[in-house]
């Protein structure tokens, strides 16, 4: 039976099917890639925690090796975030709500340009310029704030410290956080901005009342994107840092991060050796840390869904 209701636009239906198949397969592909990476890392890191000739499980040995790197990675990323996030939010706000339109375009371009600089260049800059430039500051910190363990150790004479690495990472993640925040700030509904202004809000109060609450999830996403980049950044850290043992001092040489350790160690590790397995295993650890960070971010974002204005 064909009535006008059962007859359908065949082409439209076909297009719908093709598109939905495409999106589904794209989604599945991403999951497969992720699963494959996880599987690859897990299988290949077995030798790092289990060695027949050393009496089976050697988990403690591996953990002893891994934990300073984990801490180093977290410290460097944390310094980067502390420095970059407030600046990024400030710059984004200036572009979206304060600067005259022409100027804000120009600043936007410059920021996007920062993102296009390869990380090797950042690394070289950190090693040969920023590091030496920070030496006097490290000296000052050590002399005046040396009682704080963070500034206790002998200040580095090359400036190639975990703190320098953190600063370089901060500059590197600045553009991405800024871009995300700017996009979100611009999208704040005029309706809510005007609601605040009409109540007698100053511009800053309007931003606190309307822009920030609206942008909260976006700011967190931007910061997490930046954190993801900082956690995984290899080249810049490998160049800036002169790696060494874990120390609490941020201004002494020493410390290292997982990506730098892998980048520096992998070329020298014989294929199939325990050393190689060890490097892959810390890669897996980094993978898990990143996953955890992302999940935490999602959780923070979803916690206030009811108040997000999406309803």
């Amino acid at each position, binding site marked *: 039976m064909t009535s006008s209701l059962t007859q359908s636009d065949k082409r439209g239906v076909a297009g719908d099917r093709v598109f939905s198949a495409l999106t589904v397969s794209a989604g599945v592909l991403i999951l497969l890639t992720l699963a494959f990476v996880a599987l690859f890392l897990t299988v290949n890191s077995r030798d790092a925690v289990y060695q027949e000739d050393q009496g089976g499980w050697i988990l403690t040995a591996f953990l002893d090796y891994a934990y300073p790197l984990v801490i180093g990675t977290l410290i460097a990323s944390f310094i980067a975030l502390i420095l970059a996030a407030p600046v990024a939010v400030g710059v984004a706000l200036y572009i979206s709500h304060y600067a005259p*339109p022409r100027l804000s375009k120009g600043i936007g371009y410059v920021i996007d340009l920062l993102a296009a600089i390869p990380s090797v260049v950042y690394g070289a800059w950190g090693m040969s310029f920023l590091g030496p430039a920070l030496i006097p500051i490290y000296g000052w910190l050590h002399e005046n704030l040396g009682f704080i363990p963070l500034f206790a150790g002998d200040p580095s004479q090359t400036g190639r410290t975990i703190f320098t690495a953190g600063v370089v990472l901060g500059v590197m993640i600045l553009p991405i956080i800024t871009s995300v925040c700017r996009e979100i700030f611009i999208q704040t509904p005029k309706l809510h901005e005007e609601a605040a202004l*009409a109540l007698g809000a100053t511009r800053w109060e309007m931003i606190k009342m309307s822009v920030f*609450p609206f942008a909260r999830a976006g700011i967190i996403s931007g910061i997490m994107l930046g954190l993801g980049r900082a956690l995984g950044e290899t080249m810049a850290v490998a160049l800036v840092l002169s790696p060494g043992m874990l120390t609490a001092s941020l201004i002494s040489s020493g410390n290292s991060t997982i990506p730098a350790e892998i980048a520096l160690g992998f070329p020298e590790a014989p294929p199939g050796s325990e050393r190689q397995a060890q490097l892959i295993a810390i890669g897996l650890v980094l993978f898990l840390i990143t996953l955890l960070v992302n999940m935490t971010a999602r959780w923070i974002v979803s916690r206030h869904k009811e108040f997000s204005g999406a309803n």
Partner: protein
Amino acid sequence: MSKRVDAVDLNVYYGDFLAVEGINISIDARAVTAFIGPSGCGKTTFLRSLNRMHEVLPGARVKGQLLLDGEDIYDPGVDPVTVRTQVGMVFQRPNPFPTMTIRENVLAGYKLNGARLSKSQSEEIVETSLRSANLWNEVKDRLDRPGSGLSGGQQQRLCIARTIAVKPDVILMDEPCSALDPISTLAIEDLIGELQQDYTVIIVTHNMQQAARVSQKTAFFNIAGTGKPGKLIEYNDTTAIFNTPQEKSTEDYVSGRFG
């Protein structure tokens, strides 16, 4: 407190475009004044110039005087923020702050003033404001739920509560019922009738019956054609505007013979 509003030779611009020209009007305190007129004649533009919200848009500016009880709000020494605390505004689309609870929405204006309120004080402000907005009974059990979870009509009344909580002298309303159903519209019209006892209320509406029902005075605006500035054509008692208009265009408009 409630203040009278007088415009003297007021021109309102968007950049170089003159949107509203040569307005002279005296708006009474403790009364409801309605602005009517065809779309694009500058009602919103003029209304927004009354609390300096107009200049929020890039390039927007105003020439002339606007007196609030005799004081020019466009005097160079006047801070627009101060003006807006005295001249409140209710928008066409309900716009409660989505991240705030109902209670926080009502208290939003106080938070801005930096007022330190005791718990009992803020409880009292929330209750009286919501009561005057005829919303108390509907929300008293869910003051800590988000304001965006209310119906459109309730949201609009919440916005009115938020506006009257800070006790402004003048309340501006730009088509406050145009997004609402007839029942909510009636609720808000009743409310406007009550607000008139304490405030100067100015309302823009496309609904003639509404203008006739709620207002004592009516101002009719019109434009000569697209690209031309809007002008105040006639301003008089509402009954006079609807029954014995002096101008031909007013008569055409209120009798529906427009355009």
